[in-house]
């Protein structure tokens, strides 16, 4: 078999092939393991254990043979390495946790495993999810399958790359400031960040606790429905997990039900399925810094939505620019505290030589953390310090509330969804911004506000533009909804994907 995932490029096609025994979960897993090995130059996987994977595949085959499989049984997926896993190492892309193995599975890992998915291994990422190019990893950078000199985005860069390269059918990612949507956009795949609290954070190695949210990456909105449907649900091990989503219990089945309801509503009007849908287009997303290629692709996509019957509304999110300073105060503040547990005392890297306890902790952290992590810990420590807390942390929290208000004003008064670019440009060259580490931060402008507000948002492919090397690189369209509107967002995206084929383009085959 050359690549089963190219033959069966969607969850439904692959699932059907497994159910009809056109191939076994074991054969599929072996095929994926072979592709992962063949594509090792992408540096997407940081830990593969064939025995563990094949063991899960055999269990899936047993279920399928007995006719007890479901839609996800036997499907090959992989986890961003900020989800802890029993068996596979859980490193967060850091020297600090390079050899760490967790005694428990993250809730998300457990849910997907319980649904029958087969884990192919752990995916590279920016260290502790801090970065937007997958450049800050102890395992080295991951490459973009569309152009290996370009970044795949980050911090879930390898999750997007692995899906784009057809190494797995889907992958998990985490999104603190855009880390699912941005790599999805730059690698031409679909990804969703759910409402804060929809998916459990238990077992996700924390970066910015009030912002972190797990989400899946896959080839289409339809595939995301199946994944997010089992990933979301209330978890009593996470106190910030939502018990209810609006009036509905936060439980598996919710996403599927809401998607179906929205989708059948849209389908009832075959010519103009999205008639009545108001799409807010924030003017702040189209200002200075947005490249012509991205602006053009977004414009074409918006026209496509208008053809589907949607109405375009000009809106304003006036605090968009301020989301950058707000985010780069709040996220580092939380990170500085979250990462203080890595001290070399109980687990993780401990320096080989030290003079006393304090020196042991200092050296272990100096050796264990990379430069981007240290940068953010220092910023976070600074903004929480006595005398600076009010000026930075409290001020950022005030900004955060204003950003929430901006989104609420737009989504309750002017529009049903918001659309715009995910990134100002296509994927940058890996070498870009090497001497100016904070330059990357400015490119997060369109994604940060959503995390600060806790809203759901997704990215779907909507075109291509030339990268630094001249090769065409994917462009993503961002779709933002109100709290717990994931089902409807996915249904809107699905309408677009039924009339476009950007999501079906395969890296290396354009």
């Amino acid at each position, binding site marked *: 078999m050359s690549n089963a995932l190219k033959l069966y490029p969607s969850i439904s096609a692959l699932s059907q092939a497994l159910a009809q025994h056109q191939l076994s979960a074991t054969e599929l897993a072996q095929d994926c393991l072979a592709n992962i090995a063949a594509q090792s130059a992408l540096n997407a996987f940081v830990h593969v254990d064939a025995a563990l994977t094949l063991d899960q595949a055999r269990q899936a085959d047993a279920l399928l043979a007995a006719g007890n499989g479901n839609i996800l049984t036997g499907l090959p997926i992989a986890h961003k390495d900020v*989800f*802890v896993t029993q068996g596979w190492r*859980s490193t*967060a892309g850091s020297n600090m*946790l390079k050899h*760490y193995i*967790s*005694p*428990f599975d*993250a809730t998300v890992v457990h849910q997907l495993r319980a649904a029958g998915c087969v884990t192919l291994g752990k995916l590279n990422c920016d260290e502790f999810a801090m970065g937007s190019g997958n450049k800050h990893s102890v395992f080295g950078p991951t490459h973009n399958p569309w152009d290996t000199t370009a970044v795949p985005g980050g911090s879930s860069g390898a999750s997007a790359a692995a899906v784009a390269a057809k190494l797995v059918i889907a992958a998990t990612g985490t999104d603190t400031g855009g880390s699912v949507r941005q790599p999805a956009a730059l690698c031409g795949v679909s990804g969703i960040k759910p409402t804060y609290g929809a998916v459990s*954070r*238990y*077992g*996700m*190695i*924390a970066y*910015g*606790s*009030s912002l972190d949210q797990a989400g899946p990456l896959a080839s289409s909105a339809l595939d995301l429905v199946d994944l997010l449907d089992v990933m979301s649900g209330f978890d*009593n*091990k*996470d*106190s*910030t997990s939502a018990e209810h989503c609006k009036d509905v219990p936060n439980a598996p089945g919710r996403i599927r039900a809401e998607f179906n309801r929205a989708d059948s509503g849209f389908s009832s009007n075959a010519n103009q399925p999205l008639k009545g849908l108001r799409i807010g287009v924030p003017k702040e997303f189209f200002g200075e810094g947005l490249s012509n290629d991205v602006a053009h692709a977004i414009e074409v996509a918006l026209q496509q939505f208008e053809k589907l019957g949607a109405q375009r509304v000009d809106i304003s999110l006036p605090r968009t620019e301020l989301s950058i300073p707000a985010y780069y105060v709040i996220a580092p*503040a*939380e990170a*500085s*505290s979250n990462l*203080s*547990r890595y*001290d070399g*005392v*109980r*687990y993780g890297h401990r320096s080989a030589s030290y003079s006393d*306890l*304090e020196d042991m*902790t200092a050296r272990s952290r100096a050796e264990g953390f990379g430069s981007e992590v240290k940068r953010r810990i220092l910023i976070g*420590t600074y903004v*929480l*310090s*006595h005398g600076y*807390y009010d000026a930075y*942390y409290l001020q950022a929290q005030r900004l955060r509330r204003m950003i929430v208000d901006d989104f609420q004003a737009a989504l309750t008064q002017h529009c049903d969804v918001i659309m715009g670019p995910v990134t100002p440009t296509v994927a940058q060259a890996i070498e870009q911004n090497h001497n100016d580490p904070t330059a990357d931060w400015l490119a997060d402008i369109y994604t940060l506000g959503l995390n600060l507000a806790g809203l759901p948002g997704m990215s779907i492919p909507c075109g291509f533009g030339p990268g630094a090397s001249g090769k065409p690189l994917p462009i993503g369209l961002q779709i933002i909804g109100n709290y717990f509107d994931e089902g409807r967002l996915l249904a809107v995206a699905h309408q677009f994907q039924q009339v476009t084929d950007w999501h079906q383009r395969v890296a290396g085959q354009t």
Partner: protein
Amino acid sequence: MAWEIVIGLETHTQLSTQTKIFSGSSTRYGALPNTQANAVDLALPGSLPVMNRAAVERAIRLGLAVGATIAPRSIFARKNYFYPDSPKNYQISQFEIPVVQGGSISFFVGDQEKTINLTRAHLEEDAGKSMHDDFIGPHGESSTGIDLNRAGTPLLEIVSEPEMRSAAEAVAYAKALHSLVMWLGICDGNMQEGSFRIDANVSVRPVGQEAFGTRCEIKNVNSFKFLERAIQYEVRRQIELIEDGGRVVQETRLYDSDRDETRSMRSKEDSHDYRYFPDPDLPPLVIAQDWIESVRQTMPELPTALRARFIAEFGLTPVDAAQLSISRALAAYFESVNATLPSGQAKLVANWIMGEVSATLNREEKDITESPVSAAALAALLTRIIDGTISNKIARDVFASMWAGELGGNPDAIIEAKGLTQISDSGAISAMVDAVLADHPAIVAEYRAGKQKAFNSLVGQIMKAAKGKANPQQVNDLLKAKLDS
């Protein structure tokens, strides 16, 4: 110069929950190191805290007992500092908005009632323990071990206003608080095991000066005796320092009980910047009124209410009432004895419990629950005083025999066996009085000359002749009648 002492106490009360404040690990004391530490307690990557409602309920109980405001919404904050027995390197505590706000505690210092206001009480997690002394590393080297069994044990830190003015007051407050938390069943009160740890903030100022002097905080005092000594030492140190032209430096000090002194631990200059901020892993703690009401339903009668009832119902003095309500067990013992006796005997019961019973318990370092003389047995003994079978004095001997378990601790059996029954036969007593009067004409003459003391001397002679068994009232009456006739 005359100095005024200013003391405020911060008390770390370990709450008596089955499991830890943010994890499901057991809080049992004394288990093998690190056998009660799970992923959350070890701060493993990906672990998250979940609030234990039983700890909140205990905080509500204290709040209700001291008449405090229970915050409808309080915030958990992270107190950031690196220390190896603090696994996350931050402590989850409450900073700006604590769960219990205000309130007060009343108690007696001698016969003076005193009320101390509370600033606040907040929930937080305990740290683990570093084992520096008795830990040997894997290669036989001396090393530091860490036991995280205690990490995450729920604490309620109860902070008083700086309203105490002497070491004795501070100790009385601490004892009242200690008995209150046990009364409420929110803490086992075991000071040896660290369930009730006191930090004292001590300063001095010239009498009449309004501004507080610079304070020092004495950490982790684990007995009332040490608390008193530590404060006394610290007050002396500060006054001597100032009178010698020096200046008190704000610092944290440790009390060394072996040397009976406090020593500097760290000064304000090297104090941590804790970088408090709201814990993003825990939503605000919301306590709805109906939760407070449901806790109120389970509250025992409070010591202050019980005191008022003892005064109104039994005519006890406030001091007696306060002493009898030092613990729920003692109050119950008193009520139980009292219930068996005819009304109007409460003073006798109170005197016996605070006298003979308490003295014997103290001498043997026992608690009322461990008393070998049950409430029923004491009631049987007191019944024999009331019906005149024995005198109060003889009853003390009988009590000692009961305590020792003689004859099954049965007072009647002891009185019978030892022939202690009081002589109440007026003929027999009259004969004894006549004999003593005949034998001591000189004392009789003194009495007749107006010396009242001579009367007591004659009573003593008669009781001696009666081997203490004559009814004292009858002796008094008959003697007086015969002398004055």
